[in-house]
């Protein structure tokens, strides 16, 4: 079943408290090679049948108007995945 993937990240200029907490915890397990973490969201929109250009456009609109809040987040990508 084809799926449309929407990825949303906190804006670069917005402090990401969750990412910061994860970054601080990584060294506890010996993961010392990472200087920072930012945490975002991935949405999987399932589609029955074919992903039409119209459907993809609808997903882009949903991503911009509902799945993200433009004050604090950016839509990073809207892509199609055939097999998950």
């Amino acid at each position, binding site marked *: 079943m084809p799926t449309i993937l929407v990825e949303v990240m*906190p804006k670069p200029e*917005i*402090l990401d*408290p*969750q990412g910061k*907490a994860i970054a601080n915890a990584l060294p506890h397990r010996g993961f010392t090679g990472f200087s920072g973490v930012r945490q975002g969201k991935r949405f999987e929109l399932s589609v029955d049948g074919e992903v039409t250009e119209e459907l993809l456009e609808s997903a882009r609109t949903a991503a911009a108007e*509902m*799945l993200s*809040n433009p*004050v*604090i987040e950016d839509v990073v990508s809207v892509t199609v995945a055939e097999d998950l």
Partner: protein
Amino acid sequence: MSADTPLIGDHTMPETAPLTDARIGVVTFPGTLDDRDAARAVRLGGGTPVSLWHADDSLHEVDAVILPGGFSYGDYLRAGAIARFAPVMNTIIVEAEATTASPLPVLGICNGFQILTEAHLLPGSMIKNDHLKFICRDQVLRVENTGTAWTSQFTQDELITVPMKNQDGQYVVDDATLSTLEDQGRVVFRYVGESPNGSRNDIAGVTNERGNVVGLMPHPEHAVEAGYGPNDATGLREGTDGLTIFTSVVSSLTGGNA
């Protein structure tokens, strides 16, 4: 038993002046927690609370609306993001943005404030507290705008203490909008003392350009009745600073002197 009686303690209503005809709606979404407290605060402030339901697009001719605190839709997606699309919100947005002489006064408390930002009735947004902890404490605020329907009975720069309890309370907004808010005096409430959550410019509450829509993270509806409020100079739990929010809107609606 009315819907807004307290769960414990003396549930008889205090003998007060007759209720005015100010009808103030309190919206209940799935996951709302503080609708009963808000309704009780309206009654103690001299108004008549009217329960509004998220799935009903009618405001039942109320004169003002309160979006109370809680965790509407479990804070799924983002705090307030799904509640913003409820049928009742469509009507509230139209009425709040009406270009008439007196657009609908709307107050958003905590999750209600988050809903108002998601609905674009107020600028900015809320992210997790910078220290990542849920906080629950009494908070001192400075009232910096007494020109709104909800703050008309405060004195300029009055300090008030009300409870605050949230996890996503850090107010963020872009530089340009922040300047506009400050220049236009639209910061209604500001945190006093150490910042509880990292909010930009210690902002606790803001208003829109017309001054009819106000949102704040702390909870004035939990500081309206002696014995159940924050501690203050007169004793434990005696603080009632939040009540002025509700007497202000009743006064504004009934044409009382502000």
